């Protein structure tokens, strides 16, 4: 960014452009089972970012040579709707979407008990319906909920958040404007119960000390998102048991 179009991302009181403090998440809400055909689905809103994820499987693999004899294959597509961005995005997958699909798949694969379903495939589809920063993270948060909704055995949920460095300050959960002008953007995802970092990318420059601090900050956000994920799952379970009690 050249200096002439530099915008103030943090004011003198330490408030960010949307009024948050450096360690605040944006408002998040999530729901599972939003789609009927998919075996599992979830919708996640994080500030202006809106993503929907669906899981199909375990199911038969086509073409068959993609199957593994000892475990399930996992396929993942992260895709952005043409109307999700400021300028219309072509629906054909971009290099960015292909890369993100890969790192998201690897993150999710680390928690799925794939060996339980040899010779099958689990398909995970993530659609970004509105992009306002942190879409891969919201996508991962949603996809792991969709896996749980599909009843696929997983070691843990995955919660994700992006940490950024703006105007020299480390901040949690950057939005699109912050992302465009930031000095560093570090998306990370964890299997929180195991303290495992399953996705980590950095775009920008941080000192080694800042890197540790950024991960610390990310962890804090991830634990909050993790709690919301568990609440979302429990809420659905409680409602369905209550409903079945009325019926019987």
């Amino acid at each position, binding site marked *: 960014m050249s200096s002439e179009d530099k915008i103030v991302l943090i004011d003198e009181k330490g408030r960010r452009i949307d009024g948050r403090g450096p360690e605040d998440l944006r408002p998040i809400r999530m729901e599972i089972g939003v789609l009927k055909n998919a075996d599992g689905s979830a919708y996640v809103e994080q500030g202006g970012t809106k993503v*929907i994820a*669906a899981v199909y499987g375990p199911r038969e693999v086509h073409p068959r040579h993609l199957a593994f004899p000892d475990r399930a294959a996992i396929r993942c597509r992260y*895709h952005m*709707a043409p*109307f999700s961005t400021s300028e219309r995005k072509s629906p054909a997958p971009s290099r960015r979407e292909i890369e993100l699909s890969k790192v998201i798949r690897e993150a999710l694969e680390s928690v799925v008990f794939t060996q339980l379903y040899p010779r099958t495939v689990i398909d995970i589809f993530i659609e970004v*319906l*509105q992009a306002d920063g942190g879409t891969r993270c919201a996508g991962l948060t949603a996809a792991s909920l969709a896996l749980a909704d599909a009843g696929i055995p997983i070691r843990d949920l995955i919660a994700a958040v992006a940490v950024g460095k703006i105007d020299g300050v480390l901040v949690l959960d950057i939005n699109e404007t912050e992302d465009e002008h930031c000095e560093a953007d570090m998306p990370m995802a964890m299997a929180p119960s195991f303290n495992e970092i399953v996705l980590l990318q950095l775009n920008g420059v941080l000192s080694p000390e800042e890197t540790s601090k950024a991960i610390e900050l990310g962890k804090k956000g991830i634990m909050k998102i993790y709690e919301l994920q568990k609440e979302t799952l429990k809420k659905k379970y409680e409602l369905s048991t209550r409903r079945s009690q009325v019926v019987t």
Partner: protein
Amino acid sequence: MLIPKIKKKSILSMLEKDLRLDGRSPNQYRDISVHVGVIEKAEGSALAKIGNTVALVGIKVGVGTPFPDLPDQGVLAVNAEFVPLAFPTFEPGPPDENAVELARIIDRSLRELDVVDLKKMTIIPGEKVYIIWLDIYVLDHDGNLTDACMLASMAALLNTKVPKAEADDRGFIKLNKDEATPLLVNRRVVIVSIGKVGGKLIVDPNLEEEQVLEAKLSISIGDNGVVAGMQKTGLSSFTQEEVEKAVEIASDKSKELFAVIDEALKKPSSLWEALRDNG
């Protein structure tokens, strides 16, 4: 997807008594809900549900060059994506023949009635015009995608605000979202799809019924009562009498769909509400 022969039998035998498996009468739509303004970042948007079928439409407005044979008109581009979340056999990749057919049916219905006033969408005649990208996203497929996608498309157009085009000092055209005016919509149009099974006509066939349909006729009806497009699909045929009967039913049912759009336009909604609304 194959449905067991036994189900086909029960669908047919119930239709003898003018009943359908889900309890509807032959001319009855499933529950319909439409929400507008669900994607704030898009210039226009709507989510339509017909039963468990869910269609999301987002409209982006951009600047481009006009078609050489229509230098004084804006451009409307309709595209449909059957995203793989929606159905087990929808696959990633470019739109297949069904998605292209659907987009073209909707495109023709909009064009024939001049639903969007493209002549008023020029910026510099012959050089720069507005491009309206209408992108249809099928999120859940439970039959009758045509009607749901048309409903969402029409509602999204009526929800669209066109940003003001401004030239900067170097002559580049920029769009100013802070100064936007509603898209000029001349007319409204909806599609009513009518299936034929066992010689009977049924409105709004669901997925289960679509599997046993002999043929289907999708009829576009304008708010001035005209028939603005038709598409017959399926392997079997219609007689002239059946087509006439179908047009009569479609004209009648179109009023319900226009009323749903009117209701939806009263207030902008959110995707959160729209996804949770089951009619």
